[in-house]
């Protein structure tokens, strides 16, 4: 019972903060700053999610063996920045905000920039900064910095209002590198009654002092993906959306603390199938991330997530099952493959088309060979807003 008492204060604080932010005076701030008189128009927009939560119970107690800064029982909700919940209610692991500018220079050329900031991160991150050139009808060329569209929600994975969970399933989302600097080409077409959009992209990315590794090490580790090549295609018709993606990259890590280096070839592919009827909807995604290391071992990581929700007016209960299972041919070099499954139940309430509240319960369970954080049960709340 004690844990519920401890939750009362933070939940009350969060609710009052959230209600303040839904107050009409703030909600009615007009986002449209278009300046139609001049040729150049600029549109500013943004989003934030105030997420809080705590681990209700867990199987592992004490400091994490490889990084004593984290204490367990714990739950790793966001891999990319090591957003880790523990006992004791916290808003730090996943609370985030982003602002975006879309500048249209003329009918063919525009520029998009997005900066996000996270409560668990010290500095803002540039997620988007690219020029778009619509060089022919249905064709689009972009140059600059973008998200790697590895998964269905990758491009907008920080935008809480856009999905039924508090955050997308960690079985899939959250690698050491999530952006690329390069070029992409997109083509939109109608095929057999489907609206389709397809792209190819290529680029590179280096992340210094990558927060992804914090759960497993206190070392300063730089990660880089070079020669990223990928393609995706998304098909939509009535209630059905399907997406395929394939990606290749040369990944490497430099441990600045120890001087250790590792390099691997990444092959990644994924399929997402979503069905959305008026009330019912089903979201499913399967991916496989295969890495062949230059020291003659591989790690294959198939993962999937499947969930179903039902809209009852402004309320949306959503049940999700996620699964992640690493295989390796060399337990000597890779002694603890991560293997876990997770079931979550989310209840979302839409205040209006740009504001939502969520409550989520996660039951996370590791396989015996895996020892990331131990099993845990987690309670989270979220307030999502776009403007």
């Amino acid at each position, binding site marked *: 019972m004690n844990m519920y008492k401890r939750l009362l204060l933070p939940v009350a604080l969060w609710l009052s903060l959230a209600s303040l932010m839904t107050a009409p005076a703030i909600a009615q701030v007009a986002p449209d700053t278009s300046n*139609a008189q001049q040729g150049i128009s600029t549109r500013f927009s943004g989003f934030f999610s105030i997420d809080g939560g705590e681990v209700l119970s867990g199987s592992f107690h004490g400091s994490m063996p490889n990084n004593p800064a984290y204490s367990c029982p714990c739950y790793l909700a966001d891999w990319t920045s090591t957003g880790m919940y523990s006992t004791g209610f916290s808003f730090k692991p996943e609370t985030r905000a982003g602002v*975006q500018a*879309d500048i249209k220079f003329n009918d063919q050329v525009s520029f*998009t920039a997005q900066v996000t900031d996270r409560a668990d991160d010290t500095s803002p991150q540039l997620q988007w900064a690219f020029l778009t050139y619509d060089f022919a009808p249905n064709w689009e060329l972009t140059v600059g910095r973008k998200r790697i569209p590895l998964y269905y929600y990758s491009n*907008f994975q920080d935008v809480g*209002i856009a999905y039924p969970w508090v955050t997308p399933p960690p079985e899939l989302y959250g690698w050491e590198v999530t952006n690329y600097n390069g070029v992409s080409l997109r083509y*939109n077409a109608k095929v057999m009654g489907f609206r389709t*959009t397809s792209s190819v992209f290529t680029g590179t990315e280096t992340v210094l002092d990558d927060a992804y590794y914090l759960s497993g090490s206190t070392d300063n580790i730089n990660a880089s993906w070079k020669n990223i090549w990928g393609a995706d295609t998304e098909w939509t018709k009535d209630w059905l959306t399907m997406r395929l993606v394939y990606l290749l990259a040369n990944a490497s890590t430099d441990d600045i603390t120890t001087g250790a280096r590792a390099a691997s070839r990444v092959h990644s592919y994924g399929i997402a199938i979503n069905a959305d009827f008026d009330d019912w909807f089903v979201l499913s995604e399967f991916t496989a991330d295969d890495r062949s290391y230059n020291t003659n071992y591989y790690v294959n990581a198939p993962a999937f997530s499947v969930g179903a929700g039902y809209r009852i007016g402004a309320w949306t209960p959503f049940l999700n099952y996620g699964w992640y299972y690493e295989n390796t041919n060399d337990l000597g070099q890779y002694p603890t493959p991560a293997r876990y499954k997770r079931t979550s139940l989310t209840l979302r309430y*839409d205040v209006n088309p*740009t504001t939502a509240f969520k409550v989520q319960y996660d039951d996370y369970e590791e396989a015996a060979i895996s020892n990331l954080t131990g099993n845990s049960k987690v309670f989270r709340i979220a307030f999502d807003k776009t403007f």
Partner: protein
Amino acid sequence: MSKCAIVGQAIFFLCFAASLANAGEVAVVNPKNPISTLSKDELADIYLGNAKNFPGGSSAVPLDLPEGAAGRQDFHKTVTGKNETQFKAYWAKMVFSGRGVPPKEVASDAEVKSMVAGNPNMIGYIDKSAVDGSVKVVFTAE
């Protein structure tokens, strides 16, 4: 109408008059635009950012009425098939994926008409009763 009908008779007549005035939404373009008709799908593609051009090539700039306007609800129900929540969610996904910006919102039918009349790239929707020679109808919502 159904909501109107359950209240008092005086209000019923007001509502009846209002429903007569609201004869349905039509999509309009500049008379110089070579397009003569658009299908529902072509129009939806423009309002959902899937097509940045009119069929035939010239760039298309869609105009929307503000949230809560009756014409906006009718138009989107017919053309994009999305209610306000679905439309906002769709555009949140598009905008924050760096795929474009939602249609520009203008205050009234009159403003839609004057902007479309002044720019061959613009397309908007207005109540059928507001159509005049300054714009050309390319789609009628039934």
